[in-house]
C-alpha cells in the first residue's frame, strides 16, 4: 500500500514501502509525469504526441530516402539539384521536418566511397531515413569509423579497394548527410520504383554497397 509522505518537494521518490510495478518507478514514471505537466500547461497537445510517434513508427523511414535515390539515378536534373541543394530537392518530394532542415547529399563514385557518422550523438536525416539504428548510436561506431573507416566497413561486409578513397562525413545539428550510392550495374532498364527497392538504409549511410 502506498504511504504518502506529503510536504516534500525534493523530487526524489517518496514512500518506498509499497510493491513496485514498472509504472510506479524510474523512467516510465518520470516521463509520464513530465508529459502530464507539459500537457496540463498547454505546451503540447497530447494528440500531437501521438501523431509524432505514429509518423516515426509508420510514415518516415529509409523507403523515403530510397525514393529520393532512385529518382536521382533516373533523372539527371533532379540528381544535380539533389547534390547542389539536398534540402530543397528532398523537400520537393514531400520529405521534410525535424532533422531535415539541412540535408547534404554526397555521391559515391568509382574514386570515392563516403560514409556518415555522428561523432557527438546521433544526428541523422530523419525525414529520409527515419530514426537511426542502434549501431549508429553506439560508442563503438561513433568513435571507430572516424579513425579506421576501412576496418569498420569491413565489419559491415564492405571491403573498399585501396585505390578508392574513403571519406567520412560527420553529421551535426546543422548538417546531416545522405549518401547517394552507386547505381548497381545491369539496372539500366529498371523503373524508379524497381530501383528504389534495391536501395537500403545502410547503403544511404555508406556502410553497405548495393
Amino acid at each position: 500500500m502506498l504511504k504518502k509522505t506529503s510536504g516534500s518537494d525534493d523530487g526524489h521518490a517518496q514512500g518506498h514501502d509499497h510493491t513496485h510495478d514498472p509504472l510506479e518507478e524510474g523512467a516510465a514514471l518520470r516521463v509520464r509525469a513530465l508529459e502530464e505537466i507539459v500537457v496540463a500547461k498547454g505546451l503540447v497537445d497530447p494528440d500531437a504526441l501521438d501523431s509524432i510517434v505514429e509518423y516515426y513508427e509508420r510514415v518516415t523511414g529509409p523507403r523515403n530516402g530510397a525514393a529520393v535515390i532512385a529518382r536521382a539515378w533516373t533523372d539527371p536534373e533532379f540528381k544535380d539539384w539533389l547534390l547542389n541543394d539536398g534540402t530543397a530537392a528532398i523537400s520537393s518530394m514531400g520529405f521534410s521536418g525535424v532533422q531535415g532542415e539541412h540535408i547534404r547529399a554526397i555521391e559515391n563514385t568509382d574514386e570515392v566511397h563516403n560514409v556518415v557518422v555522428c561523432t557527438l550523438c546521433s544526428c541523422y536525416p530523419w525525414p529520409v531515413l527515419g530514426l537511426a539504428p542502434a549501431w549508429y548510436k553506439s560508442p563503438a561506431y561513433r568513435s571507430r569509423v572516424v579513425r579506421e573507416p576501412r576496418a569498420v566497413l569491413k565489419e559491415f561486409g564492405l571491403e573498399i579497394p585501396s585505390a578508392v578513397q574513403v571519406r567520412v562525413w560527420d553529421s551535426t545539428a546543422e548538417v546531416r548527410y545522405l549518401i547517394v550510392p552507386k547505381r548497381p550495374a545491369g539496372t539500366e532498364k529498371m523503373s524508379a520504383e524497381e530501383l528504389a527497392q534495391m536501395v537500403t538504409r545502410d547503403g544511404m549511410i555508406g556502410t553497405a554497397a548495393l
Partner: protein
Amino acid sequence: MNPFEQHREALDLARATLPERSEGEPLFRTPWHARIFALIVALVKSEQIPWKSFQEKLVSALNQHQSADAQLTAEEVDLQYFECWLLAAEETLLETGFVEISDVARQIEAIRASVAQTRADQLSS
C-alpha cells in the same frame, strides 16, 4: 609510445565490436522511449525549444553515461541512449522553466496515488 594507447577508454573503444546490425530492430523498445522522444520533437516543432540546445544536453549526457562501456548490444545502446535522452529532456524542461522540480515530484506522487487507488478498487470490487 602512441599516446592513444595510454588512454584505456579510447583503447577499449578501438577494440569494441559493433552491436548487431539487423534491419528489423524496434524503433522504440519501451513505450516511454516513444513518449519522451515525441515530447521533445513536439516542442522543437512548435519552436518552443531550439533543437540545438536540446542536442547539446544530449551530447553531454551521452558523454557522461555512454562512453564508459563500449561493448554493448543493440538493446543496451538503445536503453542507454534513451536514458540520456530523458536526462537531456528533463534538463531542457527545467532550464526553460516549463517544468519545476516540485511539479515533477508532486505529479509523480499523484500518479502513484492514482495507481494505488485503482489497484485498491480492483481488489475490493
